[in-house]
């Protein structure tokens, strides 16, 4: 397989998952794009080092994790803003008019917003482990491989993160 073909197949099969993973770590579109692009560039450059039969997604997630970690270190102390989506003018100050929004949507928005905010309270390492374990349902071993740490570390980070989320989210869930 040629290098360009390898890249094309990687984008096709894993582009969406990688972008989503990056988005969940960064919380905004622009940084997720940067992270995804950087990760794929690294994959492209190091394509010969990929061993068939191993998990590509674990490889690229690990690259994303490391790039994100580096970026956070680099930006330490700076503020970041939420960046709007492609072609979504409502992101620029316009929330939907109250009169035409179904009440279900509001409740779901509220719960999603709760989760979004609760995730923001986690440390980057805790957030990564929650995304991988609970949203993407990876095993502890796979998460340890991606994050480059021991299973024990995964376990303890997950326990702490879940405890924090439990305290933040469960009371609100029970109310609604």
């Amino acid at each position, binding site marked *: 397989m040629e290098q*360009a073909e390898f*890249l*094309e197949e990687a*984008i096709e099969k894993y*582009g*969406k998952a990688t*972008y*989503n993973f990056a*988005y*969940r770590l960064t919380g905004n*579109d622009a940084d997720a*794009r940067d992270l*995804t*692009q950087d990760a*794929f*560039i690294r994959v*492209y450059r190091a394509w010969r080092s990929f061993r068939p039969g191993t998990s590509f997604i674990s490889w690229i997630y690990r690259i994303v994790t490391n790039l994100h970690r580096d970026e956070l270190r680099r930006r330490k102390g700076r503020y970041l803003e939420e960046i709007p989506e*492609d072609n979504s003018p409502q992101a620029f100050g316009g929330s939907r008019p109250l009169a035409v929004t179904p009440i279900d949507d509001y409740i*779901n928005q509220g*719960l*999603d917003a709760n*989760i979004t905010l609760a995730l923001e309270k986690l440390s980057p390492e805790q957030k990564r482990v*929650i*995304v991988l*374990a*609970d*949203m*993407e*349902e990876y*095993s*502890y071993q796979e998460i340890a491989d991606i994050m480059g740490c021991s299973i024990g570390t995964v*376990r303890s980070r*997950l*326990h702490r993160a*879940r*405890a924090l*989320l*439990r305290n933040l*989210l*469960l009371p609100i*869930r029970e109310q609604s």
Partner: protein
Amino acid sequence: MTPHCSPEQLVDYVNGELAAAADAEVYLHMADCSFCHDAYSSELSLRESLHNFGKATERELPASLADAIRQAATPQRRVSMLNWQSFWRPRIALPALGGVASLALGVLLLSPHSSGVSTSIAQISAAAFLDRHTEAMVTMPLAEHLSAPTFESAATLQETPDEE
């Protein structure tokens, strides 16, 4: 096992990460302990919420991002998707289509070489181009809408060429 399962045990249980014996022990304990069963249900519900949140907020890979990756990886491919996307904006596409249509008409009416015969016209000052550029920037969010009226950019530049 202590009277109740620990939260850590329940997290591992929900995630299917307990060893077989420990898993069975928790399972059996919950059959008799409503407290732990409720805690387990709550933990499961939290995991489901997170999983559903992940699904609900899943995004498609933006086409412009895929293109940007290809471009960055193989720099010789410089075709910008953004440009093509922009082309389809009505305010761009309609005049452009009009231009293409009139161009096609021109090609029909003129011999292929006649358009190459140019007519000499008095020069247009660079200031007119600079003004027009500034005028066109009116929809840009941070453009200096208040700058570059004719008398500022054109006339005085010619009077005081040493100034920038």
